């Protein structure tokens, strides 16, 4: 039933209908309303047969999930920002052990400076942790991706992250259809674990592996992710056939046919990018959008096929590799190797700065006019005067003090407030 509800609450209900048997979470900021909603559903008995573990940290949360998943339980958790980083060691364990845990990451920035707002620094910092990463464009897609994530995780025995933009999606009220329990049951049958810790038939999960087979175990991790490149579109197709809605998949092209400029993005900014593409097309510019729905595994062939006809590709992303460049941008270059296409790295929306139609439109205008250097990373809406004042100050005295505080004082901001 279509309802007007908050993103986090919609996801909580969808996860509950996926019938997890263990949920472990640490209830401090940065957390989401998702696990709060789920704890209510467990308490009231609406989500029966689920053990809700309140643990002592995010490291504890994912460690508990690893144990529960190893024991054959369908397992779920959620986190964001520093919480995800605190899980880092356990993330690699979950994927290395091939445990089909599903986790929502409500994407938020990583400090310092302290910042609670949205960007993709958290998930992107864990891009090589061996987890599949799916990115939701809307709350409807976030809901639908959770159903697909459990099916994918359990089919391949890999952990899956569903990334949804913190605040922008998690706190937004919009129309969402949470699939009915019977439909979810049909799409996602009961979990049949591929490996199980059972006292009656003891096995070891997590044996020490030396140089004789470590490479081979890691090779299989990679091979499984490559398999996911087939499984993800197949699951999205099965979802569409049963639920009658498109969600997920690897990439989603929008008006790219005949486009000589394509903007690549992920997550909730896609609607904005599509709006800009429509405006520019109306002005006679051939501009399209490619949404990356799955970032890990990286759908190299699909990205290449979708962008092959373009002359310019502008990758707009909410994170970057400090000292190197764009992250999605570098992956896109890899996909386009050998093609005569200029790739532009654009960093936008860091720490909660809105990615606006006006800014993206202006950016594309400058790209089309040849004013942006494709060899240099571009920061959307960068306040260069603010940066220059701070650089001057830093050069002028021996002890200029901390950048963040100096720049806030410069702006006349008492406490950080992006509005």
């Amino acid at each position, binding site marked *: 039933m279509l*309802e*007007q509800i*908050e993103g986090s609450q919609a996801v909580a209900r969808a996860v509950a209908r996926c019938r997890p048997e263990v949920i472990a979470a640490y209830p401090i900021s940065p957390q989401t309303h998702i696990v709060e909603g789920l704890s209510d559903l467990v308490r009231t008995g609406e989500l029966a047969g689920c053990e809700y573990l309140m643990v002592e940290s995010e490291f504890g949360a994912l460690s508990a999930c690893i144990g529960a998943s190893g024991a054959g339980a369908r397992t779920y958790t959620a986190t964001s920002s520093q919480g995800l980083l605190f899980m880092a060691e356990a993330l690699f364990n979950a994927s290395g052990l091939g445990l089909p845990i599903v986790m929502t990451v409500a994407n938020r920035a990583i400090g310092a400076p302290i910042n*609670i*707002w*949205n960007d993709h620094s958290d998930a992107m910092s864990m891009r090589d942790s061996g987890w599949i990463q799916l990115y939701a464009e809307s709350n409807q897609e976030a809901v639908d991706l959770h159903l697909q994530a459990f099916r994918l995780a359990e089919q391949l025995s890999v952990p899956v992250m569903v990334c949804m933009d913190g*605040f*922008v999606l998690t*706190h*937004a*009220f*919009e*129309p969402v259809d949470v699939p009915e329990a019977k439909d979810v049951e049909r799409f996602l049958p009961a979990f049949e674990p591929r490996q199980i810790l059972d006292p009656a038939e003891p096995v070891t999960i997590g044996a020490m592996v030396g140089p004789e087979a470590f490479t081979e175990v890691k090779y299989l991790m990679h091979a499984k992710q490559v398999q996911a490149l087939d499984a993800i579109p197949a699951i999205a197709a099965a979802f569409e056939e049963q639920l009658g809605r498109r969600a997920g998949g690897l990439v989603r092209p929008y008006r790219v046919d005949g486009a000589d400029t394509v903007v690549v993005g992920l997550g*909730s*900014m*896609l*609607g*904005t990018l*599509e*709006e800009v593409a429509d405006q520019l097309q109306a002005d006679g510019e051939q501009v399209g959008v490619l949404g990356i729905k799955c970032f890990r595994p990286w759908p190299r062939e699909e990205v290449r096929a979708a962008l092959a006809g373009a002359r310019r590709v502008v990758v707009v992303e909410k994170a970057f590799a400090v000292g190197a460049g764009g992250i999605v941008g570098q992956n896109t270059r890899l996909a386009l190797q050998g093609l005569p296409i200029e790739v532009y790295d654009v960093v936008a929306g860091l720490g*909660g700065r*809105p*990615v*606006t*139609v006006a800014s993206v439109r202006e950016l594309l205008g400058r790209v089309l006019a040849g004013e942006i250097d494709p060899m240099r990373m571009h920061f959307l809406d960068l306040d260069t005067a603010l940066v220059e004042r701070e650089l001057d100050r830093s050069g002028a005295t021996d002890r200029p003090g901390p950048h963040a505080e100096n720049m806030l004082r410069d702006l006349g901001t008492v*406490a950080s*407030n*992006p*509005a």
Partner: protein
Amino acid sequence: MFSVRIHGRGGQGTVTAAELLSVAAFREGRHAQAFPTFGSERTGAPVVAFCRLGNAPIRLREPITRPDALIVQDPTLLHQVNLFAGLGADGYVLLNTSRDIAELGLEDLAASLRPERLACVPATELAREHLGRPLPNAALLGGFAALTGEVTIDSVVAVVRERFRGPAGERNAAAAYATHDHVLERMESRSDA
């Protein structure tokens, strides 16, 4: 698309007001989206929430910088926040105040807007009368329905009753009706004049 920006202070239900407005529009078969300014929530600090109402799916997610309507829950914000930023000449303004435009020193603003689109309503007093508490958020939505016609008072009252169960729902509904009627009476007396 019709964009609404709601200004209030932490604790006044600013975010709830935007959510309720979106649910009211959704009940009428429209597409709606509500979201807060994202930040650390502190009682008494200025808060902004947004609501977009449309007849097609809404894909924009940026904060509303050019609102079609403003709801100001707390008149003391007039001296602290640039409330009217981005408001066009055809914009609507609903102010929660027991004073009038001249007393608030807003003659310039009033001159820049269409007179029938600017309304002052003592929503806090009406809320105090009907709820026993100075919480003007649901009440103001009644006034918004009267001023703009973007949602009906029936939808507003229905979602208020749904959100606040029991006596609190009835009292908030009564406050919403009272505010609605207050705004409507002023509008009618203006058009008679």
